[in-house]
């Protein structure tokens, strides 16, 4: 039995193309579907457009042609509260973390809940628990600039997960941690996927990809190939 039978695909690309400004078309004619509850690695050489593809799915940039659907809705028409609602169904780990330097790790991780209007009393325990899970409980009160790359990365992951999104987009989430921590973090994503969250992890770490049975989206020459 497929528990997601009556749900639309999390992501649907139909002939999507994208260019930055007047530059060349970095992504061409993308055509793929991510089913709810699926687990995908997104790989491809540096500069292939992995980050750009994630920014597209995040609605940080919009397709310059083609049709993109998120949770069944035409992304080209999303605006205002509907756009915000769609973003709240996604959690993202940026390749460059994008932690807010003037907020503590605790506050950074709690950010998605705060901007959604939750009272601190309702989430304090959860945030501390998640920080402990990624090994940052002792750093909860620290500001990001004083942390190592790996610590920032784990905080960014915690922030992406805290609001229990339906789709997690992680851009090189293990690029700055040792193999043991990478395994631990990957396990976290697998665990979340088991509970129904769709996961997309952009990486060129082959060793990492070999640890999980998952389909791969391979970006090359502006096109995407799905394997299998």
């Amino acid at each position, binding site marked *: 039995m497929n528990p997601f039978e009556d749900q639309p695909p999390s992501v649907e690309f139909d002939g999507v193309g994208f260019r930055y400004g007047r530059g060349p078309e970095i992504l061409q004619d993308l055509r793929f579907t991510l089913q709810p509850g699926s687990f995908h690695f997104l790989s491809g050489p540096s500069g292939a457009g992995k980050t750009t593809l994630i920014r597209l799915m995040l609605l940080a940039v919009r397709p310059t042609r083609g049709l993109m659907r998120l949770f069944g809705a035409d992304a080209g028409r999303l605006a205002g509260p509907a756009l915000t609602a769609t973003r709240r169904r996604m959690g993202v780990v940026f390749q460059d973390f994008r932690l807010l330097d003037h907020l503590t790790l605790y506050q950074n991780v709690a950010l998605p809940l705060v901007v959604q209007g939750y009272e601190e009393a309702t989430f304090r325990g959860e945030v501390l628990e998640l920080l402990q899970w990624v090994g940052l*409980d002792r750093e909860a*009160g620290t500001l990001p600039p004083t942390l190592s790359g790996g610590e920032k990365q784990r905080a960014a992951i915690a*922030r992406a997960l805290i609001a229990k999104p339906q789709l997690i987009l992680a851009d090189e989430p293990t690029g700055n941690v040792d193999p043991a921590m990478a395994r631990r973090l990957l396990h976290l994503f697998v665990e979340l996927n088991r509970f129904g969250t769709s996961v997309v992890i952009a990486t060129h770490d082959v060793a990492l990809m070999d640890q999980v049975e998952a389909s791969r989206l391979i970006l090359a020459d502006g096109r995407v190939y799905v394997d299998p």
Partner: protein
Amino acid sequence: MTRPHHPQDEPRARAPIQAFGHPGRLVPSEGGAERSLAAVIAILTFLAALVAGAAEIGLTTAASWQQALGREATIQVRPAPGRDLEADTERGAAIARATPGILSVRKVPAAEAARLLEPWLGTGADLSDLPVPRLVALALDPGRRPDLPGLAERLRAAVPPATLDTHQAWMERLSRVAVAGGALAAAIVGLVLLASAGATAFATRGVLAGHREVVEVLHLAGAEDRFVARLFARRFARLGLGGAVAGATAAGLLMLALGSLPARFGPDNDGIQGLFGAVSLGWRGYGAIAAVMLLQGVVAGQVAAAAVKRFLKATS
């Protein structure tokens, strides 16, 4: 991943976990730009409030002059060859007495008229040889203005050397000056408000551009435009209102100080006080300053909110 010891509240022991407190803290404060905006608004409000206060003093003074002038008129009887000045004066006074709306008629004694001329002629001048006109002072009923043109007409017919001086020309000129002064003050206040609006829009855009990254993270974390807009708009409104309150308070204190100055320099009615009666601001003057302050605060708040909205529309 095992730690030597791992008590539950160790994080708090090492670095206190700050609660969020006010959500405004989600956006770092841009100290410099924000302080200079508050300073600019304070200065502009100070100037506008001074102008408004001064305009109020001017208008009040003009009104009291007008009231005083409107309560009196003078009949001037010139000596004419072959006529009895004293008889002409009495006839003029009698015509005035017979006019309804005139409260009292007083023939100014020749000696008093002489005293009025002292500054020009010196004391002890013998006026009996000079053709000094006689004056009849009329007190008018402010509630029931007499028919002054009619009175002038009757005087001209009955006593040709007598003329009626109603101060009408003065009053008209005074009222024109008052209107022009009031309009000028309003225009200056308007211009100052415009300048504040410009400064606020400029500063808001600058600060927002500096926080583009933070705004994007907030958006991608699921913040609604409304939420982000509130973070910034509230802050700028508070800055604007703070600047406005500071500027208006300074202007009010300055007015208060000026009002007490002449009294401190002695009771003589020379100088500023002699000219204006008093430079003290009435409650309407302080009301004008408060109105300028509120306008400034509202304008800053509205402009900041609009600038934030426009910025968010362009970025999301």
